């Protein structure tokens, strides 16, 4: 039996096409379709149900030291009200999960994790918290629901139903407020689309009311609900990693091109530090590449990548799709650094045929801040 979001009935009423996503029944698209939902998020705004994601509260006197130990990024550069992206890594530098956490105080953080990794992460965090005094991890994933409001109109829409001045919440900051003075809500200026926007969390039993208030507030701003299909094409254009694709227990953050999370100045020891600092300094044998398909067709996750002549296997595709913004076939792949040069031609095997692609700079779509 698939797990259902608290917003399941809303999706059904909106004509959603549901799919199995890591054990959850979730909308891949609504009646409008992926390309329209994608384009509308870039032009106006999209509302995504992300209730499947995991949400933990970590608190107690040992919280800061504990997070410094399990997270690659440097928690000491955060301030209360701030958010940070990071990975949890193994000793060999490969990725357990990628996460966002939000600092209330030095002793209190919210952490949002991937749905498919939630149980693994909880076990991982509990295991490592044992070496720190006074760390309490509470799984709020099911008690709460989460949505993401993304796009250039996101602030105008949200501002019409919250009292806090959203101009004071900068990118990677958050606040606690209320929606329509009735629903307590956590609001963070973060997202996964390459657009300005907000990720919002509230009690699960308020989810339907909150969703409807957002849809209603969005009517004059051309807001459309958007499904996982558009979420994937949007994040891929912006070159945000997807766990199990660009990052995994076989791929490190340096290989995945998210080495900005590794801070040389971080004093604290953390899991994977030795390997990651070494990779940061000396590079890796393989590295992420942006690809544009020259021939017709889409090269998808798992397709083998070869050199231009098709004789030598040099890597694999991690994600591929048709870019609704560029109207081109795009992909990300992990490729041997000897062949991973901008403008180089490579080939990818699709249905026993070799399809030509060109290595291009990442991202395909540059983050678009509020104007």
């Amino acid at each position, binding site marked *: 039996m698939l797990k259902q979001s608290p917003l399941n009935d809303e999706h059904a009423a909106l004509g959603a096409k549901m799919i199995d996503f890591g054990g959850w029944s979730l909308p891949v*698209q609504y009646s409008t379709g992926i*390309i329209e939902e994608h384009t509308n998020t870039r032009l106006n705004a999209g509302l995504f149900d992300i209730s499947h994601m995991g949400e933990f509260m970590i608190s107690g006197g040992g919280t800061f030291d504990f997070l410094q130990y399990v997270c690659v990024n440097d928690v000491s550069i955060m301030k209360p009200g701030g958010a940070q992206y990071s990975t949890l890594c193994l000793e060999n530098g490969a990725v357990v999960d990628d996460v966002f956490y939000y600092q209330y105080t030095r002793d209190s953080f919210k952490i949002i994790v991937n749905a498919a990794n939630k149980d693994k992460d909880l076990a991982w965090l509990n295991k490592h918290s044992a070496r720190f005094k006074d760390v309490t991890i509470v799984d709020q994933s099911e008690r709460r629901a989460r949505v993401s409001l993304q796009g250039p109109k996101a602030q105008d829409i949200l501002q019409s139903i919250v009292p806090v001045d959203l101009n004071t919440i900068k990118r990677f900051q958050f606040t606690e407020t209320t929606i329509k003075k009735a629903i307590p809500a956590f609001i963070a200026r973060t997202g996964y689309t390459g657009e300005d926007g907000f990720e919002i969390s509230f009690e699960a039993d308020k989810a339907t009311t909150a969703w409807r208030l957002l849809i209603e507030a969005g009517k004059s701003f051309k807001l459309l609900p958007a499904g996982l299909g558009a979420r994937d094409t949007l994040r891929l254009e912006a070159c945000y990693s997807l766990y199990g694709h660009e990052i995994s227990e076989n791929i490190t953050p340096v290989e995945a091109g998210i080495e900005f999370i590794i801070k040389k100045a971080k004093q604290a020891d953390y899991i994977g530090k030795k390997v990651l600092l070494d990779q940061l300094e000396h590079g890796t044998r393989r590295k992420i590449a942006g690809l544009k398909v020259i021939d017709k067709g889409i090269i998808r996750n798992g397709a083998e990548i070869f050199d231009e002549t098709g004789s030598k296997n040099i890597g694999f595709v991690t994600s591929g799709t048709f870019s609704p913004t560029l109207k081109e076939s795009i992909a990300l792949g992990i490729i041997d650094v000897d062949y991973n040069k901008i403008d180089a031609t490579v080939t990818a095997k699709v249905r026993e045929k070799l399809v030509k692609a060109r290595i291009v700079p990442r991202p395909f779509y540059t983050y678009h801040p509020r104007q």
Partner: protein
Amino acid sequence: MNVPSTLKYTKTHEWVKIEGNTAVIGITDHAQHELTDIVYIDDFPDIGSSVEKGKIIAIIESVKAVAEVYAAVSGELLAINADLEKSPELLNKAPYDAWIAKVKITKPDEINGLLSADGYKKEFSP
């Protein structure tokens, strides 16, 4: 789900319109809905070549998936719908107008093996 009663169907979600000794082949409304937004159609056999029932006559790529289109009957490939190469979204917008291939029927008995609209609906209803 739109399944016109005037057409014949395959279990692999093609529709077939019999016009004299020509079979016009496309994909069903159900198929386009399952695929999501279609962005490419490719890999057609040459016009004039012979096609065999059940063999691939085109590859469709959507944002989320890839699918094969099979010849619903055997025969000679008379035409492909070149408009679809420029505007593959027609397969989503009007699946029963957006024909993919026309085949000159060489084995008329095969038509009897195609599904009626009711038969097709039964194939994928729970």
